[in-house]
């Protein structure tokens, strides 16, 4: 089974406000507020860490959930965020710009 890689879309603006991750699409100015799981995924999405590793290291310990279920849910979430153009999903590592043009922090 191929591994999945996820990366923040550098074309969106993002800020963590007192634990709430706010993301604004550069495409249509839509504002998203990420829930806790999505925030963890967003923060860990560096383009080089496979999704299953993110799930195993960051999500499973946080939510006491089985790796299989967590990975399935995380993949659905990642694809949903990708459909909204705030995240990138690929079966290959995703190169990241040296100097991110976005405001992701």
């Amino acid at each position, binding site marked *: 089974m191929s591994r999945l890689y996820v990366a923040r879309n550098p074309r969106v603006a993002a800020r963590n*406000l007192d634990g*709430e991750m706010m993301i604004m699409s550069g495409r249509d100015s839509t504002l998203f507020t990420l829930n806790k799981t999505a925030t963890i995924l967003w923060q860990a999405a560096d383009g080089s860490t496979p999704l299953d590793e993110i799930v195993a290291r960051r999500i499973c310990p946080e939510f006491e959930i089985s790796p299989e279920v967590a990975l399935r849910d995380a993949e659905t979430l990642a694809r949903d965020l990708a459909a909204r153009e705030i995240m990138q999903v690929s079966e290959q590592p995703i190169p990241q710009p040296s100097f991110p043009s976005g405001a992701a922090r």
Partner: protein
Amino acid sequence: MPELTAEVDRLSLVIEVGQMPVRVNTTDPAFLNLLQDRYAGFLGSFERPSDSAIEFDVELCTPPVGDPDADVSVKYCHGIWKLGRGDFLAEWNPAAGRGRIRQSRNPHSIDAVLRIVHSLVLAKEGGLLLHSASAVRDGRAFLFAGVSGAGKTTISRLAPSDATLLTDEISYVRRHGDGYTAFGTPFTGELAKLGENISAPVAALYLLAQGTENRIEPVSPGEAFRSLLSNVLFFAEEQDLVQSIFSVAFDFVSRVPVSRLTFLPDTRIWELIG
């Protein structure tokens, strides 16, 4: 043989909002008079013409171009902003500082162009145009944000004599030092009364809600941010500017206290402000 030329007098005035002068040129004396009346209190001088970084030539047309209630269109194409609504068409080259407007002889069309241009400039300079009333009391500015019907006009009407109204509709804020400064604007709402052309540091932003008692409640940073963004006047969809607005809004809520202000429509609400 002398050269035959048809020379048309160019008439000008400078409309200065938020310390940003915009020179407007026309050939129509009646339109110039109309603008002088409309923007009284916000007219700059010609003593330092180089300060006018933005200049528009207005071409008047009759009959009126179209429907002023149509949607605004703001596009950036090859270095030129193209602005349009049913009642006007405009272009602005920010690099050259020049633009032109085609509209009928009315103050509303150019007012819309000015709002758009100010919003574009502010987005780059760390400022915002907000759907909010604002007033100065004891040297500090208070902003009252809300959609139409939230109470901006009401709270403006209820302002006591020691409060100076900056606007009942569109607040103009710009980053200054460690905080933000609010400026008076000629952009009016239902009150149809121009704000005073003064400025003061922003002390608080209140999110308006009408209720059965007067009270001020804290809001979470996330709610403050979302509410602020939902009240920002911004017309363009260019990614850099959208990101800039996002950053300014984030910075604003991290520096300016934001609360929910629930109020009854009577003057006692101002006892809580200031």
